[in-house]
């Protein structure tokens, strides 16, 4: 019997036209973590359990994590490295099964010990990536992150003959205000990196932005690029994320944004959705908040018609985002003698550049803005060598924005869904 529960489950549910929904959830107390997993499993929907790790473990400070559990202190996640293998195994015993896979989520640029503990616990799914878990979270050099992730991918690929799964977090970089083409390029590049290092099953990610039609188009473009650059679709799927930026503060506003993400996921053809909760703007959610989000998203996903013809607008944006991301990927693949050298050179030259990302290896010469409808575009391409009609479509040069304008753009979804401002569709977008 196959030990790869995660990817098989997602693919099987997709064949039944069901969107898999998954929370973020992590507790240091094992009893509570078990209760959380059981509650997610109990939802009448295709769900996957999540074990999110704590920030000591993420940053490699296992001593502090161990001390905290010895003293009975509560951490902001589950310290998988500090608990012995037997306790990690008993955490999921009787819970994790073919119909209820579990994924480890962390956020570490140097995750070798986390991968080892995950493999020892027999868990077949994890996530991250050498760029996406390096750039937004700190200052570890990209070269060191690539070294660590190479080791991790090989360990995970060799852990089983079955296709154990790694999800690329590349489509979620920065959480908001990032043009989808660079997100797509990064998640594709990370998937290529995983394949090259022996990973047999992987997922591509994308986070909800500020314009539903642009998001749906980006998901379609991601599917097309996956087919162009990666292995057969049996090896991979697409995971969409509920908006990760400044969240609506009201219950109704937050719920509307969460439900919108489920609709977009189905319309864009994603197989899996990672949800947020109505507490996002305020505090760490309860298990119950997560359960509510899962139920709402499943209901909306089930009610959303599948395989509908896309509007001409979405079709046009799909082509545009495809060309832009394709250009970036192609550029990277031709920059070095191999993929890793290409990744390093792409950022070193500024040909790949993530707007507003302060990591020392990112030039940060690019900039992005929103138009009045929430559509994300490059307001300054920096050194990215877009040319011809790709450049004309992708770039709308604007003056530098003020701190107030930046705050407005970061608050776009918050204001839109809290009902303080209704987004207007301009007659002409170009």
């Amino acid at each position: 019997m196959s030990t790869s529960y995660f990817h098989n489950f997602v693919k099987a549910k997709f064949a039944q036209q069901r969107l898999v929904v998954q929370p973020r959830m992590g507790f240091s107390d094992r009893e509570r973590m078990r209760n959380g997993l059981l509650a997610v499993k109990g939802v009448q929907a295709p769900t996957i359990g999540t074990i999110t790790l704590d920030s000591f473990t993420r940053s490699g400070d296992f001593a502090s994590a161990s001390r905290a559990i010895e003293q009975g202190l509560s951490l902001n996640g589950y310290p998988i490295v500090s608990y012995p293998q037997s306790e990690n195994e008993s955490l999921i015993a009787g819970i994790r099964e073919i119909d209820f896979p579990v994924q480890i989520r962390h956020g570490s640029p140097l995750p070798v010990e986390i991968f080892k503990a995950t493999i020892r616990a027999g868990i077949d799914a994890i996530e991250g990536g050498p760029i996406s878990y390096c750039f937004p979270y700190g200052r570890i050099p990209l070269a060191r992150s690539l070294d660590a992730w190479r080791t991790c991918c090989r360990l995970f690929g060799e852990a089983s003959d079955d296709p154990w799964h790694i999800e690329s977090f590349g489509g979620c970089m920065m959480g908001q205000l990032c043009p989808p083409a660079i997100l797509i390029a990064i998640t594709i590049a990370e998937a290529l990196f995983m394949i090259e290092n022996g990973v047999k099953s992987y997922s591509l990610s994308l986070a909800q932005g500020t314009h539903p039609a642009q998001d749906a188009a980006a998901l379609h473009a991601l599917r097309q690029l996956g087919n162009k650059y990666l292995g057969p679709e049996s090896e991979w799927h697409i995971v969409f994320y509920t908006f990760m930026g400044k969240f609506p503060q009201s219950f109704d506003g937050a719920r509307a944004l969460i439900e919108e993400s489920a609709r977009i996921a189905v319309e864009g053809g994603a197989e899996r959705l990672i949800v947020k909760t109505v507490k996002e703007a305020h505090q760490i959610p309860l298990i119950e908040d997560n359960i509510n989000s899962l139920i709402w998203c499943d209901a909306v996903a089930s009610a959303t018609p599948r395989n509908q013809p896309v509007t001409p607008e979405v079709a046009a944006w799909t082509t545009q985002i495809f060309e832009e991301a394709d250009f970036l990927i192609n550029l990277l693949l031709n920059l070095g003698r191999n993929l890793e050298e290409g990744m390093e050179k792409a950022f070193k030259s500024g040909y790949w550049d993530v707007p507003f990302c302060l990591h020392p290896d990112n030039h940060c010469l690019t900039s992005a803005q929103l138009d009045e409808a929430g559509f994300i575009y490059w307001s300054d391409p920096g050194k990215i060598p877009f040319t011809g009609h790709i450049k004309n479509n992708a770039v709308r040069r604007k003056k530098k924005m003020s701190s107030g304008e930046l705050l407005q753009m970061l608050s776009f979804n918050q204001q839109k869904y809290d009902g303080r401002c209704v987004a207007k569709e301009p007659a002409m977008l170009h």
Partner: protein
Amino acid sequence: MKPIALLTTIPSDSHNWNLVFIQLFLQENGFEVINLGPSVPYDLLTEACISHQPDMLIVSTINGHGYIEGKELIKRVKELDSMQEKPVFIGGKLSTDVNMSYLYAVELESAGYTRAYCNDQDLQDFGQRLQHIKEQAMVARQA
């Protein structure tokens, strides 16, 4: 020449957007900004204080650990001769508890910060202080 603002955060804070926003705000208020980015170790910060000789230091943090690491940070910064008289601000989400943050702000100020901010309205006070610091920095340079 513009006065120099050194912008940093506490070692455990990996957030990015708050630093991007404050950088723009400081630039609009006439400062040259050196932004150290997220997750800044204490040593990197003290080295930057020595090499850049800033006119002021701003610690922006939103991960809720500001009330812990903010104290260690100010202790290390105030050990530097060049920083003893310089204004140092901390602001953002100082702890995970909104109400407790006001009390922590008082603690942080008695630990050596010029001001500790934990409220959206505080940006106005900060803006006014920036004008004052700018004028003082100019006077000091001419002297």
